[in-house]
């Protein structure tokens, strides 16, 4: 065996693996865009004009790029949350609630902490505390589901959905009640503005893009590093791929399930926290509606790989951001974009359709993202 030849084949293997992993998502996007174009045509629009407007709206100017990155930021955090859980064999449907909780607690610490203490905090203390509060709120909320799974076998899909109801209603109760902005001019459910010292600064003057976006990219790298380089990541992946073998190997499967959910929830909590501290500077009820569910789509499209999640987040962000301009230029409804996103997800989830259309053979074993109800 010549080492050089082997290295080469290793490079080829890696390239092949990348191709295998990206082919179906790429074709899914392509097919969905094609069908979207067809529908635009049927309703009397010009698909080329529409898509051009979409691209301009997403990437056509500095401002457009900045706004796309802003859309992408919570998607990356929440997408990573769902992807990390997937890799540990868990289906975290609860990013929506974890995210809302993260936002609520960040907002609370952001506006109320100086008042409680009776003095102002420097930003290098207040901001980390604010973000940490949101991350831990999301993490705890998810870890409860992890513990239920580990100790009672209660399925995380059901329990995260139930926890979403609790989190979203509690959020509504808090933001519309004791946390409501007391300003007499305010009539909607929103918190007061958070202190200056709890805000993430914009990267450039005049653009809304903030350092939270950079933090999202750093977290993507961190998740990749955790999963692929650390001993804990090895344990998480082993539990995800084969919990029986994990138990045999001496891994404390219960502990890993709880840790995986904790980390997943922390990431989802960060999504909410960074929206509050970097963009809105307050929690306004319903601002994050649907992010947690989009995150599932993003994790699926990104094949639960951190880089894939970043790319998928950009795709979804670009579509959301460009949609406004598309609607303005062509009078086509924004809903069309939601439809194309749904089609992409449909083709990724039911990849047999894409494989059939493009005659791609299945290679190797199928990756099972989630196990059945038996756990």
């Amino acid at each position, binding site marked *: *065996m010549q080492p050089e030849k*082997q290295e080469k*084949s*290793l490079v080829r*293997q890696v390239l092949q693996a990348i191709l295998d992993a990206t082919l179906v998502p790429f074709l899914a996007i392509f097919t969905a865009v094609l069908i979207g174009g067809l529908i635009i045509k049927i309703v009397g629009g010009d698909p080329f004009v529409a898509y051009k407007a979409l691209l301009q709206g997403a990437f056509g100017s500095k401002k457009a790029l900045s706004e796309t990155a802003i859309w992408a930021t919570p998607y990356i955090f929440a997408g990573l949350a769902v992807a990390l859980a997937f890799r540990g064999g868990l289906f975290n449907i609860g990013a929506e609630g974890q995210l809302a909780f993260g936002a609520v607690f960040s907002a609370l610490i952001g506006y109320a902490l100086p008042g409680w203490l009776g003095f102002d905090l420097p930003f290098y203390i207040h901001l980390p505390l604010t973000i940490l509060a949101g991350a831990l709120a999301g993490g705890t909320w998810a870890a409860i589901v992890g513990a239920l799974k580990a100790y009672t076998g209660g399925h995380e899909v059901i329990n995260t959905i139930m926890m979403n109801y609790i989190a979203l209603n509690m959020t509504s109760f808090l933001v519309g009640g004791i946390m409501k902005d007391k300003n007499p001019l305010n009539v909607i459910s929103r918190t007061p503005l958070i202190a200056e010292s709890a805000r993430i600064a914009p990267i450039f003057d005049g653009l809304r893009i903030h350092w939270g976006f950079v933090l999202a990219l750093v977290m993507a790298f961190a998740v990749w590093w955790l999963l692929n*380089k*650390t*001993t*804990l*990541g*090895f*344990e998480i992946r*082993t539990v995800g*791929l*084969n919990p*029986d*073998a994990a*138990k*045999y*190997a*001496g*891994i*404390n499967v219960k502990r890993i399930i709880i840790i995986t959910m904790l980390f997943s929830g922390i990431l989802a909590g960060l999504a909410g926290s960074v929206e509050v501290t970097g963009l809105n500077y307050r929690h306004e009820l319903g601002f994050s509606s649907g992010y947690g569910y989009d995150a599932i789509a993003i994790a699926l499209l990104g094949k639960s790989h951190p880089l894939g999640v970043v790319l998928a987040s950009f795709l979804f962000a670009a579509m959301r951001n460009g949609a406004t301009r598309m609607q303005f230029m062509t009078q086509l409804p924004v809903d069309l974009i939601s439809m194309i996103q749904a089609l992409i997800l449909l083709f990724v989830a039911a990849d047999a359709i894409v494989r059939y259309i493009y005659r791609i*053979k299945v290679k*190797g*074993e199928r*990756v099972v993202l989630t196990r059945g109800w038996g756990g």
Partner: protein
Amino acid sequence: MTENNIVLEAKGITKQFPGVLASDNVNFDLRKGEIHALLGENGAGKSTLMNLIYGLHNPDKGEIFVNGKAVVIHSPKDSIALGIGMVHQHFMLIPVFDVAENVMLGDETTKRGSLDHKFVADRIKEISAQYGLDVDPNALVGSLPVGIQQRVEIVKTLYRNAEIVILDEPTAVLTPQEAEDLFRIMRDLTARGVSIIFITHKLKEVLAVADRITVMRAGRVINTVTPAETDSAQLANMMVGRQVILTVDKQDHKAENEILKVEGLTVRDQRDLETVHNVSFTVRAGEVLGIAGVQGNGQTELSEALTGLRFPTGGKVTIAGRDLTSKSPRIITQAGLAHIPEDRQRHGLVLSYSIADNMALCDYYYPPFSQRGVMQPKALDENARKLISEYDVRTPSPFVNAGKLSGGNQQKVIVARELSRENVKLVIANQPTRGLDVGSIEYIHSEIIKMRDRGIAVLLISAELDEIMALSDRIAVMYRGNIVTIIETKKTSREQLGLWMAGAHVEHA
């Protein structure tokens, strides 16, 4: 009986699967009223050939003739219509249905819109009497012993008027005595004009029951012979393609102090039924204790309880003087256990991990594989390369996924990982050679004996009586969750063990 009356013939059958030529220009014929054994190792192409005949796959090339007529078989429905029946290794029975309901399943007879249970039951009684099968149509299938369940499967094929019956590894789940019964039934069937294809990898059975033997290897037919003109050694050579040592070379070895001590162990399975009752035994350093028994008599739960995968409900497990009852697999492994699990793909490996990762599956968390919480790919790689060459794992590189290896090589990965660990004091090997090729079996047997000769205690659990007899110094027989006896291998016989495995009363001398 050997007038050349050919009922089934396959000519030049070729079937290509991605990467494997599973069937390479295979010719095979079956005469009326004969038992034609199809002998070969796992992966030799026996099942592929039968799946082609039974219509589960379509051949790329070649023709199949039934009673002299060329036929195209698209599905099992076609083959059933042509009078071909198949009894799979894993029974296709519904335990909560009675025999008659199982038999009519997929071919229900109705009378005024409801199932005609009586008509079917009468047919079954008729068939059962005709072929000496002795099956009660009203018995609940789940309550029947495995040997009888198998007869239900045979009745199913006969009920559908099968004249050609394919039996796929039928003796794998039977005691030696049940197997004898099956052979008698097979002879009764052929005497009444049914033709049988008998798929197996067991040489003794073939020589005992077959009229002709076709040996397959690597998708090709090697030869077709009669039992009179051959013997086990020759058949083994044809199967493997080289000289095979059929007996394990084993010197007497003095057993020393107790390593594993099991006292009054009681275990429940996942349905919360007690499947191991108050079991006690010891394994000493330098001996192999074999646990013989038909599958499903508590061996799985026993080994799970000993290795930490399941907590016992009573009793005590001591390894090398330490009480390890209800301790986690990690702690038991650290105390000196090497565990070759029963189901290598479920417990032993993560199939989508590389060989290198799998070879450190139980040891990944301490140096050199892990330093300050970070995995060390270089150490994993070095470890894998060393073990691959020491344990003769056939793979192009340590980066290959374990799932891509053959069963034999997968098992070698596990054996290498477990037996190479430094502090091993006890080896628990559960069905260590199930489904493996002869070459790998030889290898794993020799490794087990090597461990014993190094003064390590070995607990061998196997449903293969030959394996138990070849490797063990002492044998414990397990029946319905009890150890009915423990005896020195020298002082017993295959027949005697077979009786005990079937629940015969043990006479204490």
